[in-house]
């Protein structure tokens, strides 16, 4: 990774004073993760360029066990790109300049001077659009040159890496601060453990520019590694409110989740109440959102949640762990592709947005597990209506609403499936819509209620 800082201020060599590095010397600094070299490719009164060259010891980092956070793999872009390693190096090597200390040229510290920073290369997760959005509001002229992933395979497209040049007439201290904060933000990663102290750093470094930045929320979110507890704390400390509820920039929000989810829950609850079920299965309970809703209704004497993802299940456990409920609510790890006697003798089963996550080729097995072996009196299944997808502008045609969806059925397909189930097992079906019904495309979610004959 190479970072160069050029000035055309006259005398340009004063940059040496500001950086506390002599223009006629090449210096090396030992860092915990490798070495940093500083040298001046050009040092005249007209133009002076300082270069910070970062030399990362990848194999050492991977092998030394003190800091395993830093590297995931031997084959890594970290030595070649600007990242949080660069920020740390700036703080170490140009520490005084970053703090704005300069005894020899104290007036220069706050004086705007013409500066040009070049980064070889900067990973921009979010493309050069985000790069512009981050630096232009701060007064920079941004030039970014993209790089192909591999010239031999042009079909692979472009890499996320850019050779970036930033030009502005500002104090050096500001340039370094902006780089310090925004490089890891663009990279969207940190090589170290992000904790409470990171908020202090952000507030200190962001003083005077961050709170007015149009991309403030994104900067805070990415800088704190998307840790909700930390971002909330940061907003509290900065005495600010996040601009929108959902501050995650990279999440494709295709459904108006909250509303539709609630409607789904209400619809299913209503059906359960009609069925008079007391012992209820929540199959594919995920993190236990619906299980919790069920637990709030005293009608349900026994609730069993089953989930295949152990991670989701452990979250559900946390959500539902109240001593008083322990006998009433049970959460088990299991799979809908295996016969499970623990599911026997329940009145009703709910599969809320579950079947679209099952492999279509294995649906027959799932059908037998639920309809032949568990066979509760009522089975309620909800699944997205593919017809409705066209109404979502944010969803590209042909794509599913969630990356793990194995299929999304149109109303016709869903009906065909329910009919085939009816034929195979001793159930009859009613299909009902959930959510606002479009005259053409139908409802966003479809629900089937199976009742044992």
């Amino acid at each position: 990774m190479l970072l160069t800082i050029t000035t055309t201020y006259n005398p340009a060599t004063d940059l040496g004073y500001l950086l506390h590095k002599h223009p006629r010397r090449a210096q090396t600094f030992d860092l915990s993760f490798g070495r940093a070299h500083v040298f001046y490719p050009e040092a005249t009164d007209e133009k002076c360029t300082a270069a910070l060259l970062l030399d990362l010891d990848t194999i050492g980092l991977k092998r030394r066990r003190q800091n395993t956070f830093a590297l995931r793999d031997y084959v890594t872009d970290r030595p070649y790109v600007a990242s949080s390693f660069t920020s740390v190096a700036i703080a170490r090597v140009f520490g005084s300049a970053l703090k704005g200390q300069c005894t020899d040229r104290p007036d220069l510290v706050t004086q705007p001077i013409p500066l040009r920073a070049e980064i070889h290369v900067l990973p921009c997760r979010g493309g050069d659009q985000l790069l512009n959005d981050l630096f232009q509001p701060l007064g920079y002229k941004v030039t970014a040159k993209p790089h192909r992933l591999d010239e031999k395979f042009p079909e692979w497209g472009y890499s996320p890496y850019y050779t970036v040049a930033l030009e502005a007439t500002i104090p050096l201290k500001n340039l370094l601060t902006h780089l310090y904060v925004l490089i890891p933000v663009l990279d969207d990663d940190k090589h170290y453990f992000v904790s409470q102290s990171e908020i202090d750093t952000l507030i200190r470094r962001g003083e005077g520019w961050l709170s007015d930045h149009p991309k403030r929320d994104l900067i805070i979110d990415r800088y704190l590694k998307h840790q909700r507890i930390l971002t909330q704390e940061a907003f509290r400390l900065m005495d600010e409110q996040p601009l929108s509820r959902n501050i995650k920039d990279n999440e494709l929000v295709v459904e108006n989740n909250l509303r539709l989810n609630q409607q789904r829950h209400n619809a299913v609850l209503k059906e359960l109440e009609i069925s008079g079920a007391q012992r209820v299965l929540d199959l594919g309970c995920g993190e236990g959102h619906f299980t919790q809703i069920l637990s709030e209704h005293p009608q349900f004497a026994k609730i069993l949640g089953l989930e295949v993802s152990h991670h989701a299940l452990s979250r559900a456990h946390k959500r539902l762990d109240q001593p008083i409920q322990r006998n009433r609510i049970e959460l088990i790890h299991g799979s809908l592709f295996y016969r499970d006697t623990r599911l026997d003798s329940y009145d009703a089963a709910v599969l809320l947005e579950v079947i679209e996550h099952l492999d279509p080729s294995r649906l027959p097995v799932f059908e037998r597990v639920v309809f032949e072996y568990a066979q509760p009196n009522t089975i309620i299944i909800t699944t997205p209506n593919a017809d409705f997808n066209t109404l979502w502008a944010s969803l590209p045609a042909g794509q599913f609403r969630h990356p793990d969806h194995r299929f999304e059925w149109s109303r016709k397909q869903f009906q065909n499936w329910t009919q085939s189930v009816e034929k195979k097992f001793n159930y009859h079906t009613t299909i009902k819509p959930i959510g606002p019904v479009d005259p053409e495309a139908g409802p966003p979610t479809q629900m089937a209620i199976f009742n044992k004959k």
Partner: protein
Amino acid sequence: MNITIPEISLVVLIGVSGSGKSTFAKTHFKPTEVLSSDYFRGLISDDETDQTITKEAFETLHYVAAKRLANYKLTVIDATNVQESARKPLVALAKQHHVFPIAIVLDMPEDLCRERNKHRPERNFAHRVIAQQRHQLRRSFRRFKREGFRRIYTLRSEDEVQHAHVTREKVWPNRRDDHGPFDIIGDVHGCHDELLALLDKLGYDIQPNSIAPPPGRKAIFLGDLVDRGPKTPQVLDLVMQMVDSGTALCIPGNHDTRLVRALQGKNVKPTYGLSETLEQLESYPVEDRKRYAKFLDSLTSHYILDNGNLIVAHAGMKEELAGRTSGTVRAFALYGETTGETDEYGLPIRLNWAARYRGTATVVYGHTPISNPEWLNNTINIDTGCVYGGALTALRYPEKECVSVPALKTYNKPSRPLASETTRSVQQTHDDMLDIDDVIGKRAVDTFLIPRITIREEHAIAALEIMSRYTIDPKWLIYLPPTMSPSKPSSRPNILEHPDEAYAYYRENSIAQVIAEEKHMGSRAIVILCKNDDIARTRFGLSEPAPGACYTRTGRSFFDNKSLETAFLTRLQNAVSKANLWHDLNTTWIALDCELMPWSARAQQLLQEQYAAVGASARASLNATIEALNTNNNIDVADWLTKYQNRSQRIDHYIHAYRAYCWPVHNLTDLKLAPFHILATEGSVHHNQPHTYHMETLSKLCTADPELLHATSYRVVDLNDTQSCANTTAWWKERTAQGSEGMVVKPIDFIARNKKDRLIQPAIKCRGREYLRIIYGPEYTTPENLKKLRWRNVKTKQSLALREFALGLEALSRFAQNEPLRRIHECVFGVTIARKECKKCFPKKDCHLLPPLHCWYLRVKPLLVPMQMLCYRSILFPMAERAIRQMMALLQAQSLDRAQKLPLKSSQKV
């Protein structure tokens, strides 16, 4: 007095305190067989005389007794047991486990008991206690029989106790010492002619008055000799004659017991063919009829034979009932398990006990007529409905072959049609549904190479998730390939791996000859091919026909594109046909271990996100760096310049290395498949063939379709011949210089052991210098980096490789032997798990987990349980961070200042 007890029974000692029960127990039983109430009091309260915890002590005692009885062990209860309320639960326990409760009463003179208690200072109870106990005992005598004790022995004096002798007798069903071989014959139902024909076919010598089996063999009749058929008395004569002469065993069927009751004059409805029998018997003298009744009445419900490997019963036998004696066991043997309801033909609806059978013993039974005998979970029904015009079938054991003779005519119409044939076997249909109990929890898998490979519960949890969410239909998953260990690091300069180390490993393990096979750089693929699409149903038990399957080393489908997959597999089918392998290997399917190239076909995303990305960023960054260093500014950066120019060169090598394994795939022939093992074919796993056989056979296959198939080049190396080794090394150098990944060194035998008979690595990889840049990064070849990398421990990887190897071959051999899917599935499950049990999860040395986490792991272990499942490379880091954060929050909430002392300093340090 001679006390006879069945080998498995619940012996209840009864007597007042001081009557000598413990001494009696010590004399006649093993210490572990005796459960003494005093001992359990001591276990719970440290005081054997503590009467306050009597309830708890007995609860524990009953619990242990139940476990022993379930485990088929004789159990002796040493407690006073003078009250009916104390004996009642014991009798119930015996009943529950279908064993006889036996009472041994020590009715000693009161003075003697008093005298004995005087010498036991800890038993200093009042006179009236003994008197009261004696009173209770006296009252009990009349009741023992009614309470359910099957045998009652009473010892009334010291002399009798001294001369008492306990003998253990075998329970009736136990014929474990009888090893056969047997010919097990299904329901005869009075079909005398067919029985003679069958015995003849089985090689029995049939004389008018005697029937002699082939030397050493023995016939077993599965009951239902009578009713429905034309010649019941003749059949009975024949069987009785054979049983009397010791050449046959016979167990009763439900029809036989009904006949007994009818002959005994009880009121039995003459239905279900009984009237025919009674008609046939009418002309027989009363003595004969009594003889028949006596014989049929004397039969034992079921037998356990051949060291417990074979169970025969008329209607089947559950594992937990086998070898026990009770009305329930007998009823199960005669009628099987029914729901109590009847079907549309008026016959009882039977529960399919065989579907849930998990025992290791083979169960042979009859009772329900079916059209074809079929195996299900190691059980087989051989009643092929002779009397209904089907056939009379015998199972030869241990050969496990069925021998049948067709019925001469239809003597009787079945009231329910016989189960009809389908393309798939009963087992396959049954295997559509795996049971969760067969995969979750801590498990141990016995493989023929390594006994008892343990699968931890948390790993089973992880595997269940993978198996449910990502893999293809488990019926195709008959194998997953093992991981492969690299050779020890080489000490040569500039190089990390060298063939010499691989040779040395095998030489140390006294292997003389190895094979060196070129290692292809693509993606591992397991290819299963069927001779025709229907084999997928008939042999693999899938519900739809298919040409075969191709899946990755983690069991995912290799192709996302279904039509490409079908075209690929069909083409391979044709190649196998062209190479005439179906015929040569005498098979209808074949499983191949292969490498599918190019790498970019499957790993496109990985290539773009990681490999090409590193190349692109390095190229751009280093070019700029070299340019900057080139600028002449009177400072000396020449060293740096050289260094960066070298780095730039290494990046070029790196890019060159990964590019060699990428090419666009537009159509089928852009793919290259390199098979290197014939894993299995019908009836056999090819692990007993040397690798040269695999190579030669496969090269034949490859010539059949050279466009798609790529023959693997190989060398056979004589390890004691330096020239041979050097030649192969030269070949390795040459191949890797041309961009090959490297080579794999394997002992010439598929399974190799060293002199100590220890299993050794089935393969060791030895990768080329340039290729390793893809593994260890572009810059690994600098001396300082090599020095760091040479510190490498291959032990963990080697032990993992062996376990996976054993599990993989076990899965194949179970499939080849037509075992139930759950038995194959558990091995494959094990491989998935073994892979998860990597250094990341249970780190000792070579750990990828965050070090502070280790520390935390030891201290806050219970909190970390979910972590063990989460160590996939992709989610490890966010996970680890979150876990630490949660734990910190937790500790802070509990205001523990320990948090600061823990080595969570990675952020401060930087």
